[in-house]
């Protein structure tokens, strides 16, 4: 099929390798990948801050770009949740309500798409390291994604998955991380401690924004843990 990729702003700027990995994987599976020139943002920052009109100005372009897509795959759980779960609410009572529901129905987060839509769990990847998986809150609670990434990780050669003892928010929360930096940092520290307790080398997640926050804290503390996106791990075919 033709898969339309939505690469949100921070993946585009800070973690392009995540998008590249997704393209390689989908093409390897025999699908045609397209990526519209614009848009770059799902509109979540404005939405979360309460500026729904401004959010709609950005989101309506997203809808137009994906109107004719066969299927849309989003490189982030939180942006995925915005399009899939929140667009219908954002556009409720507007002329685009129907289009929002339509786009929402054909939109998936990457791990969800591979496992639940394509029925694929084994991509022949190799990553002989001990890892833990961080569930981004939007992925987990808005999009109900928990099993899919784990099924994928289980099929990776050499990978050992160790779960953290608690499932808890990393503290990024979008603009929250800048508006309430000390609370955000305290929450991130708790997450880093939980990860460190597992004795793993890598923290894997489907959410680059969470990883940016966690890695930012680890680096500041000169810690040794490394963060990596699930798509990057899945694209590993050689021993690293």
């Amino acid at each position: 099929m033709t898969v339309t990729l939505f690469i949100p702003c921070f993946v585009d700027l800070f973690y392009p390798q995540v998008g590249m990995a997704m393209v390689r994987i989908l093409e390897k599976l025999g699908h045609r990948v397209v990526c519209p020139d614009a848009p770059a943002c799902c509109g979540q920052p404005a939405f979360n801050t309460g500026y729904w009109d401004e959010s709609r100005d950005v989101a309506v372009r997203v809808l137009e770009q994906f109107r004719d897509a066969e299927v849309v795959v989003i490189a982030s759980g939180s942006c995925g949740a915005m399009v899939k779960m929140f667009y219908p609410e954002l556009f409720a009572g507007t002329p685009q309500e129907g289009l929002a529901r339509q786009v929402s129905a054909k939109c998936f987060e990457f791990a969800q798409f591979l496992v639940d839509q394509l029925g694929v769990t084994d991509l022949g990847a190799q990553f002989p390291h001990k890892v833990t998986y961080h569930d981004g809150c939007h992925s987990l609670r808005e999009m109900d994604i928990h099993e899919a990434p784990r099924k994928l990780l289980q099929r990776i050669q050499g990978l050992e998955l160790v779960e953290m003892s608690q499932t808890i928010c990393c503290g990024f929360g979008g603009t929250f991380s800048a508006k309430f930096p000390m609370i955000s940092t305290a929450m991130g520290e708790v997450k880093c401690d939980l990860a460190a307790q597992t004795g793993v080398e890598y923290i894997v997640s489907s959410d680059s924004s969470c990883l940016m926050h966690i890695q930012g804290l680890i680096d500041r503390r000169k810690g040794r843990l490394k963060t990596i996106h699930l798509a990057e791990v899945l694209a590993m075919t050689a021993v690293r």
Partner: protein
Amino acid sequence: MNSPATQFKHDAVRLTADRRHRQIINTALDKYAVKRDEKKGLFQDWLGARQLAAETKWEAVNHLDRYLDQFVRGLEARGAKVHWASTGEQARDLILGILKARNARTVVKSKAMTAEEIHLNQALEKAGHTVVESDLGEFIVQLRGEPPYHIVFPAMHLTRSEIQETFQQKLGDAPSDNPEELTMVARRVLRQKYLQADAGITGANFAVADLGLISLTENEGNARLTAALPRTMITLLGIEKVVPRLEDLALFLPMLATVGAGQLISGYNTLYGGPRQPGEPDGPEEFHVVLLDNHRTALLADAEQRDTLHCIRCGACLNVCPIYRNIGGHSYGTTYCGPIGAVITPNLRGLQDWKHLSYSSSLCGACTEACPVGINLHHHLLQNRRNASRQKPSWWQKLAFQAFAPMANCRVLWSLVTKVGRAGQKLHPLVLGTRLDPAYAWTQTRDLPPIAKTSFKEWWRHRL
């Protein structure tokens, strides 16, 4: 005098830096979580129970006039006197009036968040009454002159040695810091208060409409004694506490205890329907029930937020909230803390003054997941943010978002943003970590990754 928002930021910063405090709270909540999960596991279908509870509360709140009327009739038929207060001030005056009419000087009180909400104790003390909090946790914070730290566990933030010190200072009696011995000190002191008090004041967890009964949940037995011995009993409760039938308690009592305290059911769940009835050997001569509105009808009128009135005040949302776990109950600066507090306080006390509580959340959704009556708490936080921004937009934020739209929507502009961002980052080290740093909020505690040499869109374009 700081604005609530400024005070909040100040307290949050102070408390997140206090690792010892965070450790105490997290240890307490971790212990609770183990018990809670164990009891949840006893239910055959917890999610099913949640759905039934949500439906039952929906029915009660969405037909509130009918059920309130039924509730009051049942009570009055048994000789209880029912009073109505639109505001906290009216409720305080009503209670003062009852105490005066009944010649009641000393008052013993069991735990009631609604009484905290209307600052009842201060009003009673100002009018010359002695008020003694009988719940152990409330008793302790009352001695310290502090507000309760948590809806269910008022003294969660204190260590045994802090409590020993308080008892030594205020009661002159604290043999050790052993929790059992400290509890016995409180028991000794309070026993006399129950016997001597002229009046007992309680809250209520549920108002059973079909029979006109209040339902009161506790573990210590202090509310039982407060309602048994004094000659006057007063119960204060919010109008939203109704449940339609006696049978509904079969669901609510175990759910409240399970997520509230990690127990299958609390130690004492007691129904009160009136003053001492003919033939009964004891009980208050007069039973007064004060029904409080205090902006609850405003919440009722907002159909989007109406389900916040379904809240059974169990504290489950507090216990899972990562913000609460790191800043503690006092930081909120208001009666209802944690997620439910963040949701209702702006609507009860003023949207613009209190919206910061709705903003200080990462919207993780753990609260909504934990709520036994299925209130969509984190979505309500989003709605509060939307309502606050509509009512009084921040001009620079509005401008920033308006400016962002064309940049995000247009290929050329986004490309420019990418290049400018890259260049800007080269200069960043010059201001990094200083107050001139535009990303200071981030870089104060975290490193920022570099913008990639080739962004995804640039790579994609070259590929084609």
